């Protein structure tokens, strides 16, 4: 089958919509287009039915009931609602929040805003393998801690945190446990009961569903309360007002159901393709480093640094593949990835990192093409590299006094 370019290997950024999801959504645009809150006619009832089916599908995909799902515009909104909502509602119990340095900006920036309001936030450091240890969470907890927010899996390096262990410690100290589950949901098993999770942020567009729709899981037993951010009509049990994005929600439900059904076989397939990619590249290219734990990692993710060359120049050579880099040059701020920095990856290696995210629709043929392309481009850039030349001559780069400006 002819390859389609660019080959998409950036499934940690977003995913293509599964045609089955799109098919499920379409009738809700032009046939069952009612407002799900319209109680008085069949259009409304049909829309509501679609929404309630999706509620059960998303709920059961994380071991919860449909009643515990609040629809939002995406995980960023869910993160905001969970953290601000819980902090404000439970502020009489304490003012301390714990999170990690490698969280998504939706969590970090929300915490920064709460700090301005007077909350205290501890940003935990990761271990060298990129994971947050349950011990570090426990040690940071005080009797003023009301909320702990730790992501299920990291978007840049794909490492999976020991959420069940962390949940045990958090519950023992009676604080709330929020998990940004965006990267792991649908790819690895995640059960809110087993992990003692109170709040979980989810999104559709990482599950081969549409963008612009997400959910917040809010535990009912025992009942967790939140201060709403959006007022106006009291939808979603008062937690999130606004007319529901019915087609988006229906798509989200279908996407979640498909992931639940296909998870085991997909994890095997992504893992096999990921390993094929990694082995292929590492056997043809020297001086490569894997960022983050290989053992506790999302099956389709790999983040590789290529020493002595720079990430953006490599990406330019990889125009036929869609991937991303932790290099400063590819970020608008010219700063290298804060996640890689938090992992202790040296700056020059952070500049050369490439993130590959293999997904449902990638094939062996695509992987083989990418292995060949990456190997050739890295070799070519190494020929251009003064650092590589120095290393070949036996010079220790750390001994040089660089004339930086």
């Amino acid at each position, binding site marked *: 089958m002819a390859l389609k370019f660019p080959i998409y290997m950036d499934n940690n950024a977003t995913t293509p919509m599964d045609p089955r999801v799109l098919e499920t959504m379409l009738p809700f645009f032009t046939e069952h287009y009612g407002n799900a809150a319209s109680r008085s006619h069949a259009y409304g009832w049909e829309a509501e039915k679609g929404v309630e089916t999706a509620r059960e599908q998303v709920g059961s995909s994380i071991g919860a009931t449909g009643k515990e799902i609040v629809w939002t515009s995406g995980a960023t909104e869910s993160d905001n609602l969970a953290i601000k909502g819980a902090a404000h509602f439970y502020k009489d119990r304490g003012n301390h929040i714990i999170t990690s340095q490698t969280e998504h900006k939706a969590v970090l920036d929300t915490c920064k805003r709460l700090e301005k309001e007077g909350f205290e936030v501890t940003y935990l450091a990761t271990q060298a393998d990129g994971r947050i240890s349950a011990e570090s969470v426990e040690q940071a907890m005080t009797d003023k801690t009301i909320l702990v927010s730790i992501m299920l899996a990291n978007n840049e390096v794909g490492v999976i945190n020991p959420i069940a262990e962390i949940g045990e410690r958090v519950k023992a100290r009676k604080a709330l446990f929020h998990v940004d589950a965006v990267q792991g949901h649908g790819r690895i098993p995640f059960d809110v009961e087993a992990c003692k999770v109170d709040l979980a942020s989810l999104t559709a567009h990482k599950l081969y569903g549409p963008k612009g729709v997400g959910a917040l899981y809010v535990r009912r037993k025992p009942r967790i309360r939140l201060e709403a951010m959006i007022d106006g009509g009291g939808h979603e049990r008062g937690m999130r007002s606004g007319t529901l994005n019915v087609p988006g929600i229906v798509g989200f439900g279908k996407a979640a159901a498909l992931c639940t059904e296909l998870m085991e076989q997909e994890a095997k397939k992504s893992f096999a393709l990921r390993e094929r990619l990694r082995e292929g590249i590492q056997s043809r290219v020297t001086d490569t480093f894997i960022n983050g734990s290989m053992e506790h990692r999302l099956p389709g993710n790999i983040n590789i640094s290529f020493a002595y060359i720079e990430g953006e*120049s490599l990406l330019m050579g990889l125009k036929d593949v869609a991937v991303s880099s932790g290099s400063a040059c590819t970020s608008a701020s010219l700063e290298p990835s804060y996640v890689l920095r938090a992992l202790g990856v040296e700056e020059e290696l952070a500049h050369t990192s490439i993130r590959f995210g293999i997904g449902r629709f990638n094939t062996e043929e695509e992987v083989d093409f990418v292995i060949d392309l990456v190997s050739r481009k890295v070799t070519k850039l190494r020929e251009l590299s003064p650092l590589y030349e120095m290393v070949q001559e036996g010079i220790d780069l750390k001994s040089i006094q660089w004339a930086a400006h």
Partner: protein
Amino acid sequence: MAYSEKLLDHYENPRNVGSLDKSDPHVGTGLVGAPACGDVMKLQIRVNDAGVIEDARFKTFGCGSAIASSSLATEWIKGMSVDQAMLVKNTQIVEELNLPPVKIHCSVLAEDAIKSAIADYKSKQASLHAAQHAPAAE
């Protein structure tokens, strides 16, 4: 990043990649930047007795703009006198390659690299002359 055709050309087909003999008294070597910043340029010139740059080579660790800026720099200075090469300004590189604002610092580094190579050449020449004209040791 939307790069100009000229920039892409320098990236795909960089000119004058390579190295000259550092120990040659006619060769000046400039090394600027730092790996931690994501930009390192090595630029070398070979200057003939008439003070004209007859060859120039570069190697760069950096983004597409950095590679293109240094490639362009070597292309320009070949055939220039050392004094003319000192006058090459980063703004000329920005204009020629249509560098976006966020990449202007790459052109600055290329200008620095030229000057650094010339400085190295001049200091080597100075020590050479000092050695030649030094009084014979007793």
